């Protein structure tokens, strides 16, 4: 005879915290948490004690004091009487400027090199391989200082442009001056300008917005919107009747005419650089430090992007192309509908992390004297005010914000294109 008994009621004993896998994870986490808290408390306690001894209790008031140093490459107005906060803001903008410029050029060069490396032409492929290996295996800092040295040492000085028979001449129909003090390019000017809107008054974060630019953007945006509407209508007609109306001329007209009329109305013209006295005046001056940093970062990152693009294209198996051909697809469509979507899934995530690396590497600007945020906040401001803790924390915070926003974009993309498994 058998009797059914309830399983013995599990009573909780202390040893189960260690030996029972159900509770052990709780124990481990509690220990980890306590350990982390102790460590953090110890570090903070040390920091407070040390800072008190040094007489530097953390405060951020120094940000509102006059900076007293100049920033030569800048996107907003600034003078040395402005605050440290404004200097940092300009530094941040400079970081973003070189990062965006670098990402665009690096992508263009990288895609080109990556595709050419797969070329059937032996010598082209080998040249690209040499380029990639050369840039990937030498530190980026070396490339940056090398680019700076090349610009300073090998380009003509402004005075070489003077005289009846100058040693150097301006490029591109006398519009661009390449000198060892930087490159002068034409700047857009408006003779009937609508003026600027001053935002945020006289505070450290003030900035001016050009009404001309806004007007141009609005008109151009409307044109693009019109073009999409025209295309949508063409598609509707095509689906209803089978004939697609010719939209080329309408689209071209919409693209150029409204913006062109607006530009003409605003009196758009280019301000060319001119040699006056010992230096060029007029035009937009891109300093050597910016150019060197931009060039070096683009070429360096392009080498990595080239490898990513090459890998991405190789990762799509040849069977896909063959299958598309078997379905009767033309090569262009095969590329656009079959190969690229699959290659991009492989290419885009590492590409974005390379953009991130480029942005972080732009902090090496300090080696050539480009005033990015590391140069202003982490460089001169830190040295002048002696507020190491605050400045380094703010610096890290700025970079963290940039990086985390980029990673968020990347995670969103990864989740969208992820292959669904069980």
């Amino acid at each position, binding site marked *: 005879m058998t009797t059914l008994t309830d399983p013995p009621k599990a009573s909780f004993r202390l040893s189960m915290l260690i030996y029972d896998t159900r509770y052990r*994870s709780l124990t481990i986490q509690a220990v980890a948490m306590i350990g982390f808290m102790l460590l953090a408390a110890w570090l903070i306690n040390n920091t407070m004690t040390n800072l008190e001894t040094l007489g530097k209790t953390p405060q951020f008031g120094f940000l509102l004091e006059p900076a007293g140093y100049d920033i030569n490459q800048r996107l907003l107005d600034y003078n040395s009487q402005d605050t440290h906060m404004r200097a940092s803001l300009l530094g941040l903008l400079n970081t973003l400027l070189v990062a965006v410029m670098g990402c665009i050029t690096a992508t263009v060069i990288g895609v080109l090199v990556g595709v050419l490396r797969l070329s059937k*032409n032996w*010598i082209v492929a080998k040249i690209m391989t040499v380029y990639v290996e050369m840039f*990937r*295996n*030498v530190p980026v*800092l070396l490339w940056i200082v090398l680019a700076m040295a090349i610009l300073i040492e090998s380009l003509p000085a402004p005075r070489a442009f003077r005289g009846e028979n100058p040693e150097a001449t301006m490029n591109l129909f006398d519009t661009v001056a390449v000198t060892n003090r930087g490159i002068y390019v034409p700047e857009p000017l408006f003779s009937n300008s609508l003026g600027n809107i001053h935002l945020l008054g006289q505070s450290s974060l003030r900035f001016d917005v050009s009404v001309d630019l806004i007007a141009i953007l609005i008109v151009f945006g409307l044109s693009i919107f019109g073009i999409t509407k025209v295309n949508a209508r063409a598609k509707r007609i095509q689906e209803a009747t089978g004939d697609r109306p010719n939209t080329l001329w309408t689209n071209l007209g919409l693209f150029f005419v409204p913006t062109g009329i607006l530009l003409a109305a605003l009196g758009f013209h280019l301000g060319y650089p001119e040699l006056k006295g010992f230096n060029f005046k007029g035009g937009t001056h891109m300093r050597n430090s910016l150019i060197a940093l931009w060039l070096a970062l683009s070429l360096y990152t392009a080498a990595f992007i080239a490898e990513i693009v090459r890998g991405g294209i190789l990762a799509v198996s040849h069977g896909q192309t063959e299958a598309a051909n078997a379905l009767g697809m033309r090569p262009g469509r095969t590329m656009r509908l079959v190969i690229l979507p699959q290659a991009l899934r492989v290419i885009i995530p590492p590409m974005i992390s390379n953009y991130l690396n480029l942005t972080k590497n732009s902090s090496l600007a300090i080696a050539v004297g480009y005033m990015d945020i590391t140069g202003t906040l982490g460089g001169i401001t830190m040295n002048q005010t002696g507020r*190491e803790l605050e400045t380094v924390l703010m*610096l890290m915070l700025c970079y963290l914000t940039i990086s985390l926003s980029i990673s968020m974009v990347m995670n969103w993309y990864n989740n969208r294109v992820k292959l669904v*498994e069980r």
Partner: protein
Amino acid sequence: MSDVSFVRTEMLPEKEPPGSSVGVIGWMRANLFDGVINSILTILSLIFCYFVLEGLLSWTFQSVWNASSLTECREVMVATWGKTHGHACWAVINDRWLQLLYGFYPPYPAEAGVNFGEGTGSWPAYFRPNLSFVLLLIAVAPVLFDKLPRKLLIVTAVYPFLMPWLMWGGSLWGPLMVAAGFGIGLLAYRLLTPVIGGLGGIIVAIALPVIWWLFLVGSVAAGLESVVSISIPEVESRKFGGFMLSILIGVVAIGCSLPIGIVLALGRQSDLMIVKTLCVGFIEFIRGVPLITLLFVASVLLNIFLPPGTEFDIILRVLIMVTLFASAYMAEVVRGGLAALPKGQYEGADSLGLNYWQSQRLIIMPQALKISIPGIVSTFIGVFKDTTLVSIIGLLDPLGLSNAIRADAAWNGIYWELFAFIAFLFFVFCFGMSRYSMYLERKLHKGH
């Protein structure tokens, strides 16, 4: 009906392929002049190569090797070729290569007060860093190539304790006693496990060495040193420089970051919420900021975080920060490997009844690490290249030294030769590493 046959009845002998499709000509037709666009590209590339090589080769090989200053170099150039540009002045490398390799590390380290003259001493110049480097190669070799005798692994185990002693000098008892800590831990585990059970044994085996390292090592080593003195002259950290410094930082960061990175990756993949959050926070923080800000922390802030009065030298602080930096990247690479394993592997390990550590050690890690080899090596390369950043906080790595050399009146204004030399050495190391990773990938590729 005629018996004229229109079909050949016997086989013809095979013919040679046409001359235009085999050999050099065939190869060139297939790879260089295949169509109009390709031909144009080939010709343009050849012209480009000609100009680059022409300039580069004459610059490199028609050069001055013996001169004591840039001015003298230029005089020789004018005397020989009639112009100064287009010719390298390798004399600067000839003059300063020892500095570029070793920084200001003394060739014959001596105790303070003892005066060794040039070329004296019982050992060859730079004996200690050179021996460290050779031992490094020996220590790394059995890890890299599994055909070598396993006994060499002893060198690998000893090296982490031997290298600091050789480089910084001082008493041998310090590193010996630090190594003894591991012995104490092992001994405690062996002896105590039968007495107080497995878990208690592990806890004691971790706690005892930590106590030993934190509180006892210094005094015991000093005591032993006063009884039996085994010491060599000390070298201060600020004398370290050149490629020696780059390799030192690179090797330490690479060596320490792999284990830390694996632990962080496991933490990030684990189900324990708090552990996971801590690991994610650490990894994302380190990866989100540039190395240069971490080096700022090393140079100005790290001493503030530590108990008042703690002073340790800048190289050690930089080593700590670079290691942390590398581990975060390593963790992401290893995590990629872990994530790339098919779920079946984890489930298979579970169904065999293996516990967490067993399944990690026997099933997951070998495969995950194999998948992540390219990433691991490219992280290594990245870390090694990033060691140049220490020049920004004032350490004398090759780039920092190149500025120092240029500050000398004799070599003021010399750029290309120094940069070329530094770039060449970095290229050799990094290219070598990437080739090794490709070799390893091929070797470990067990698929079909």
